[in-house]
């Protein structure tokens, strides 16, 4: 018996119960981001074929949509009453869609919650109810240039120490950079969240409705970036691909860099390390990734859930996250598996993922992230305000906005 047939058999056993509820001969539309490259496309086709082989007579229409325009299309389709049966959904949107009554909650007893990375699963939880399933996940860690940094820093003190040592204005070598060169704004704020998590802090205490920007760990996290900038001149870190060209010793970014680094910059000697933590704190990072949801208006919810659940099963989730999307699986059994092989970079990210902290799930967070937190970062990093001042002002605004 070939491995594939074994998988199909195993999956079909798991499936027996699910399929009885799904209508025979039904079809669903599933909206997804475009797969990463030709191999990803073939892998997605295979997933669809495998599922349809199990769920005889039913079809899944996979509709690929450019990632950058996905939310635009999705919201317009909903506005004119043309929503799909199921789709990918950005993590921060699950709460908003659920509150609008658009999503079908995960049916009771349909899934085994223990197979998931809890950080990823919790991005779907709104008011204690699950409104979707995580499909893939990602986070940020530190890339470092092994020729410049022999021993990656583990704590913030070591980080500053290393930064001092590698900084070289004559050779135009900066200590610390940001992927895409942006240090402020919404993107910078998302990256910076990793350092807040590694500082032992959090941005909001949603349960008690407290904005935690003014707490010491958060201020320290911003102070750290300000300190790092002293060893990281803007004209170096703003240069395109400055890490790749060897001008930046350490860079915060996600696993999406790996393929490019290996393919386009084979000369570069690099490694991945966990985000350094504050001495007294545990490791931490942010989380990103894709969730799958089923729309309340769908006429084939049973089939839609069966499909989403299929995508979270060990084998198919590995194919979906690694081959189709270039992300990380959310299924614990796969995550522990040998698929990583001896790949140190992937192993480092897999390790980092354990310390992921979900972003705040309050309504309008994206706007707060871009317009208030991002602005506070720009002000502090640009030297207009001290980190404490910038964050105090930001906290005040967020309090007024959220009415806390």
């Amino acid at each position, binding site marked *: 018996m070939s491995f594939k047939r074994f998988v199909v058999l195993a999956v079909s056993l798991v499936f027996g119960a699910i399929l009885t509820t799904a209508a025979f001969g039904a079809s669903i539309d599933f909206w997804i981001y475009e797969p990463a490259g030709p191999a990803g496309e073939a892998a997605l086709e295979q997933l669809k074929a495998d599922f349809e082989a199990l769920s005889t007579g039913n079809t899944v229409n996979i509709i690929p949509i450019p990632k*950058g325009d996905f939310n635009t299309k999705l919201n317009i389709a909903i506005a004119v009453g*043309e929503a799909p049966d199921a789709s990918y959904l950005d993590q921060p949107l699950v709460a908003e869609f659920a509150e609008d009554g658009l999503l079908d909650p995960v049916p009771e007893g349909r899934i085994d919650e223990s197979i998931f990375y809890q950080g990823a699963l919790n991005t779907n939880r709104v008011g204690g109810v699950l409104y979707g399933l995580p499909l893939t996940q990602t986070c940020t860690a530190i890339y470092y240039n092994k020729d410049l940094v022999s021993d990656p820093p583990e704590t913030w003190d070591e980080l500053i120490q290393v930064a001092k040592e590698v900084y070289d204005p004559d050779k135009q070598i900066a200590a610390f950079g940001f992927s895409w060169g942006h240090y402020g704004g919404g993107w910078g704020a998302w990256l910076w969240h990793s350092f807040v998590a590694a500082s032992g802090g959090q941005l909001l205490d949603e349960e008690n409705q407290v904005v935690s920007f003014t707490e010491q760990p958060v201020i320290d996290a911003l102070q750290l970036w300000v300190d790092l900038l002293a060893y990281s001149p803007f004209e170096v870190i703003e240069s395109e691909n400055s890490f790749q060209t060897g001008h930046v010793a350490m860079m915060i970014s996600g696993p999406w860099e790996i393929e490019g680094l290996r393919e386009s910059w084979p000369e570069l000697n690099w490694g991945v390390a966990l985000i350094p933590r504050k001495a007294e704190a545990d490791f931490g990072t942010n989380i990103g990734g894709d969730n799958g949801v089923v729309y309340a208006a769908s006429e084939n919810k049973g089939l839609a859930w069966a499909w989403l659940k299929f995508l979270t099963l060990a084998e198919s989730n590995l194919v979906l996250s690694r081959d189709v999307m270039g992300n990380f699986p959310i299924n614990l059994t796969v995550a522990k598996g040998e698929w990583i092989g001896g790949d140190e970079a992937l192993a480092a990210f897999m390790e980092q993922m354990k310390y992921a902290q979900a972003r705040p799930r309050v309504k309008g967070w994206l706007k707060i992230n871009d317009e208030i937190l991002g602005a506070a970062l720009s002000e502090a990093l640009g030297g207009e305000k001290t980190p404490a001042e910038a964050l105090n002002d930001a906290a005040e605004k967020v309090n007024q906005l959220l009415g806390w």
Partner: protein
Amino acid sequence: MARLSKYWLCRSLVLYMALLIIAILMVSPFVWMISTSLKNGPDVFTPIPTLFPINKKTGDIYATLENYRYVLIKKGFAIAFFNSLIVAGIVVPLKLFLDALGGYAFARIPFPGRDKLFLLLLSSMMIPGIALLIPRVYVTKVLGLYDSLWGLIIPMSVSVFDVFLLRQFFLTLPRELEEAAMIDGASRLRIFIQIILPLSRPVLAVVTITSFIWHWNDLIWPLVIINTPSRYTLPLALALLTSGQSHKPHLTMAGAAIATIPILIVFLIFQKRILKGITLTGLKM
């Protein structure tokens, strides 16, 4: 006489030098696009963009058609190209005719409320398209055009911008020609087709070029109107070529280069008309 020709020689030399320098500035991104489309993945990113595909390891100059092969045989790309051709092939002539007809009336045929109506039309250009998007999709759906190629044609069949451009050009045409034709008993439609349109070749060429490019490249409208992958147009197929996470410029550029070919052809055909100055007779100044 000798001094005069020396002057002309100097003049052309300076002119051509200036034109050439500007041309290099203008053309280089296009050249980079083509050259990137001929590169292997690993050779795309360099600190300074290279104008030729150079192998990073050996330093040799090379060219590969692999990216084109991948882009062309990729499922859906050929269909997308075909869909785009159909849409542009129908919408551009249709639009040209309707816009010219309207533009002519707004320029030349008086009727009550004409100029006010024109200003009202013009004012619709001043609202950012994003705000109009959802109601437009809704109308398109009500008309039964959602998720069909006609949905890419009918809602795009007129452009106020072009009406305005054409009107401005019709305003420059001498009235005497029409008046003479009218005395001969020609109808307005005949005047329009037999006199006005032939005289307006330069501007009609401009409108053809620009509206072809616009429809050929438009991403947002097909994105929100089309759900069925077999009806995707080229910009959609292109956007799908590279994932948001793994950036592959060599594939994007190969796709973009293919998408550019029809635009270049249209431009090369019609640009000739832009400079064919027409000699008018009976013009009063």
